[in-house]
């Protein structure tokens, strides 16, 4: 764990309790909107989205006593800036161990920003099959969209300046659960 003194000035906008409550509410909303877990599947976008997807699945299981299949998506190969980068980013594995065709897939990511990641994720997902529906769940929506994309489930709407950085830090990557804004 890093000490806050080592970082840029960070402002905590969600703490561990806030994150837990947001996850619980989103789990309820997913169940409500889809009338249960029938045909439901969650796919987390690496890396933060994967952790959140696992938390959501766990919560859904507690609420509904039913399991939901879960997958992990690496969107690197679908990025729209690959041909502009000098060095190619590290690839991680995509692993969606269930058939997504005719399923309602909830994509899960930590921060919704320009929307480019989600565009890439939808392309990646559709290469794996033809879902009946794709929905989007994010912990934080910080605005500044560059594509016409909207989330169905939002943990927190966070007005930000474009040059600010929003980070979702989670226990799974060795941090204390929190969402912070880093001043440039």
């Amino acid at each position, binding site marked *: 764990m890093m000490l806050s003194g080592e970082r840029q000035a960070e402002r905590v906008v969600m703490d561990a309790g806030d994150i837990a409550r947001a996850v619980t509410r989103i789990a309820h909303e997913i169940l409500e909107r889809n009338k249960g877990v029938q045909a439901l599947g969650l796919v987390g976008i690496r890396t933060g989205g994967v952790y959140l997807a696992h938390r959501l699945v766990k919560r859904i299981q507690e609420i509904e006593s039913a399991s939901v299949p879960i997958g992990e998506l690496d969107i690197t*190969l679908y990025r729209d800036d*690959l041909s502009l*980068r000098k*060095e*190619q980013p*590290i690839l991680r*594995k995509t692993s969606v161990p269930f058939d997504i065709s005719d399923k309602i897939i909830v994509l899960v990511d930590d921060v919704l920003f320009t929307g480019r990641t989600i565009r890439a994720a939808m392309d990646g997902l559709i290469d794996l099959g033809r879902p009946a529906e794709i929905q989007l769940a994010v912990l934080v929506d910080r605005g500044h969209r560059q594509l016409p994309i909207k989330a169905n489930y939002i943990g927190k709407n966070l007005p930000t300046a474009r040059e600010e950085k929003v980070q979702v830090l989670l226990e799974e990557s060795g941090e204390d659960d929190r969402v912070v804004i880093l001043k440039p």
Partner: protein
Amino acid sequence: MSLKRKDLLSLAPLSVDEIRLLLETADSFKEVTGREIKKVPALRGRTVVNLFFEPSTRTRTSFELAAKRLSADVINFSPSSSSVVKGETLLDTARNIEAMQADIIVLRHPSAGAAETLARGVKSSVINAGDGWHEHPTQGLLDLYTIRDRGLSFEGLRVAIIGDVAHSRVARSNIHALVKLGAEVRLVGPPTMMPFGVEKLGVRVYYNFDEALRGVQVIMMLRLQLERQGIALFPTIREYARLYGLTAERVRLADPGAIVMHPGPINRGVEIAPDVADSLSSVILDQVANGVAVRMGILYLLSGAS
């Protein structure tokens, strides 16, 4: 960690981290090649040129498939059908290809060092697909990938490489990489096929096949290049097969569960008995399958903007 190289010319200068990055990147593409839609848009708009001055089906097809699965455009250039027969030099041919906006050139050439020469002369990335007796780095990487895929780790791994080591670029690439990764490499073959001073690379030389096989986990056979045997490196093919051919009986001398590898094309009944090539311990076809994923990874990592 990222690959900060324009070209992939040989495995000798790669760091352990670079080799690991190449293998891990191939993992992601192995998943892609297992999908129903085996194509990703990563190299959209890029052009890959296969420039092959030696006959090759396997390697060329593998590169072609890899590039196509990354959505790149692929052109196959072979000298018999080009201006090379009219006397154009390698560099001039390549510059013409480059002028047509090729991003990556995959070169197979009978002369050692051809890829290096080409890489210095063009801005495109160059991948060595075999240069003379020097190296065949993508084959080396797919061999490493196949070993790792079988759950074997390189540190302390005992590998025997058998055959015409002196004239094998596959052996050279594997030796450099395996020694670097901490494997114990044993070379086996008749003295006429063993390069002088090869021990300096950190390997042990055996002339007795049975002795070399004891305890090895990987048996890597080299193809006996029958087309090169005008230069009489051994008396008869029958004698070679008896002394250095891999039989089921010999496989039993190795570690139980040892894997048998061969870069292909195989000479059945010469360096490898048919029943061994088709046995459960043979990973020859896995090597071919993994080759596509490994080459996708290499193309991807070299495709950064210049």
